[in-house]
C-alpha cells in the first residue's frame, strides 16, 4: 500500500496539517507552496525567543482531485494552536488570491473549460484566530482573508473543512462562516468566542469550559449540522473529507451560492429569523433548539452513529 493510501483511512482529527493536505487531493498531485524547505519562519517569534516552524504552522499548496485544481490551506494546531501571524497569514491570503488569479487565467485562456477543470479552495481550519505574539499583523491578515473570500465569490468556491483538535474560533470563526461551504466532522468545533473566553467574561454559570460535553453540544459538528451552520457532516477520516470535497468539485459553480449561510441580503433576513428564535427561546442548552427543530430525543440522536444521525436529524428550518 502506498503512503498516500494509508493516509486516507487515518483520523482527520489525529492527523497533522500536512497529512490532511496530502490526503485531501489525489496521490502525487500535491505541490506545497512556501513549504518547509523555504524556511520562511516567523521573524517575530524569533525576536521573542519563541520556537519557530519552517512552515509557520500552515501548509499551503495546490493539488488535484480528478480534473479539478484544488488550492489547499491546512492549519497546524500543534504549532501555537494554529494561530495566524504575518507569515502564515500571508500564505493563506496569497493562496486564495492565487486561486482567483488562476481562475481568471483559465477563464481567459481556456474559454471551453468545464466547471470541473476550474479551481476550488479547501481550507482545513485548526486555529483560535490571531497569534498574540504578532497580534496586529495577525489581525490585519484576517481582514485580508475576508476580502479575498468576497473577491472569490462567483469565481472560486471556497470550502471550509473543520475536523481538527483545536477547532475554529476567534477571527477565523467568522472567516469560516464566510466561506461557500462548510464540511465538519462531529469532532470539529466552530464558533467565535472560545469556551474559556466565555467563561472568563461571563462566569462559570454561563459557561463551564471544563465541561467537554457542553463545549461539543454548543459548537460541535453535530450541533452546527442541526443549525444549518455546516452543510455536510462527515466521518472522522481523511477519506471522508476528501470524498465530500471530490463531490463538491463536480458541482456546477453557480450552485455554490445556494450553499451559503451568509453573504446576501436574503440570507441575512433568513439568519435574522434564527436570531428572533434565539430571543424568543432563550435556550439554556443547544438541545433545546434541537427539540424545536423537530428532534424529540436529542440525547439519543447525539449518540447515534454519524450515518444514522445524518439520516434522522431534523435541521432547523428558518
Amino acid at each position, binding site marked *: 500500500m502506498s*503512503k498516500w493510501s494509508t493516509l486516507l483511512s487515518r483520523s482527520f482529527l489525529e492527523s*497533522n*496539517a500536512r497529512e490532511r493536505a496530502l490526503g485531501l487531493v489525489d496521490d502525487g498531485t500535491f505541490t506545497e507552496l512556501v*513549504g*518547509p*524547505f523555504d*524556511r520562511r*519562519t516567523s521573524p517575530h*517569534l*524569533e*525576536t*521573542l*525567543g*519563541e*520556537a*519557530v*516552524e*519552517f512552515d509557520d504552522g500552515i501548509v499551503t499548496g495546490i493539488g488535484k482531485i480528478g480534473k479539478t485544481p484544488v488550492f489547499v490551506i491546512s492549519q*497546524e494546531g*500543534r*504549532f501555537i494552536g494554529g494561530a495566524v501571524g504575518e507569515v502564515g497569514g500571508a500564505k493563506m491570503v496569497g493562496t486564495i488570491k492565487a486561486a482567483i488569479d488562476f481562475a481568471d487565467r483559465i477563464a481567459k485562456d481556456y474559454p471551453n473549460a468545464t466547471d470541473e477543470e476550474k479551481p476550488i479552495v479547501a481550507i482545513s481550519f485548526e486555529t483560535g484566530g490571531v497569534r498574540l505574539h504578532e497580534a496586529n499583523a495577525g489581525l490585519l491578515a484576517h481582514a485580508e482573508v475576508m476580502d479575498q473570500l468576497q473577491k472569490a465569490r462567483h469565481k472560486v468556491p471556497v470550502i471550509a473543512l473543520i475536523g481538527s483538535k483545536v477547532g475554529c474560533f476567534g477571527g477565523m470563526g467568522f472567516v469560516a462562516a464566510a466561506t461557500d461551504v462548510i464540511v465538519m466532522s462531529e469532532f470539529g468545533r466552530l464558533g467565535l468566542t472560545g469556551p474559556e473566553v466565555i467563561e472568563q467574561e461571563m462566569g462559570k454559570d454561563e459557561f463551564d469550559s471544563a465541561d467537554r460535553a457542553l463545549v461539543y453540544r454548543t459548537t460541535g459538528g453535530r450541533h452546527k449540522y442541526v443549525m444549518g451552520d455546516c452543510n455536510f457532516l462527515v466521518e472522522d477520516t481523511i477519506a471522508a473529507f476528501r470524498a465530500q470535497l471530490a463531490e463538491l468539485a463536480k458541482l456546477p459553480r453557480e450552485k455554490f451560492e445556494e450553499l451559503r449561510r451568509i453573504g446576501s441580503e436574503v440570507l441575512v433576513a433568513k439568519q435574522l429569523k434564527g436570531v428572533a428564535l434565539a430571543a424568543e427561546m432563550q435556550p439554556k442548552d443547544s438541545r433545546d433548539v434541537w427539540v424545536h427543530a423537530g428532534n424529540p430525543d436529542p440525547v439519543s440522536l447525539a449518540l447515534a452513529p454519524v450515518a444514522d444521525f445524518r439520516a434522522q436529524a431534523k435541521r432547523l428550518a428558518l
Partner: protein
Amino acid sequence: MALNTLEFECKSTAATVAVAKPVHFGVVGSGDLEILMSPAKNDGAVKVKVVTPVTGFDDLWRRVVGAFVENAKLGNVSIEINDNNATPAVVTLRLRQTLAEAAA
C-alpha cells in the same frame, strides 16, 4: 531573549548512509520538534543546526545528535532542527523517523 541557535558538526566513524533528497518531518508542538534532512557534500561529516528557545543544553544536543549519526552511519547530510523543549528521547525518535521518511 532571541532564540538560541546552535551549530556543530559530527562525523560517523563508518559513514555510509546518505539521503537522496531533502526531507522534512515533524511538527514543532510543545515538547516536540521538526527536522529537515538534506544532502550536503561535507567530507563525510554531518552539519547540524538547532534552533531552540532552550539554553544550556548544547553538550546534550551534541551527544544526542552525535549518537544518532554514529548509529545511523550517516554522512554528507545537513540536519536542521526547530525545537520546542523536546526531550532527548523524542529528539532521537524524530531523527530516526526523518531518516526512515528519507529512505521511503
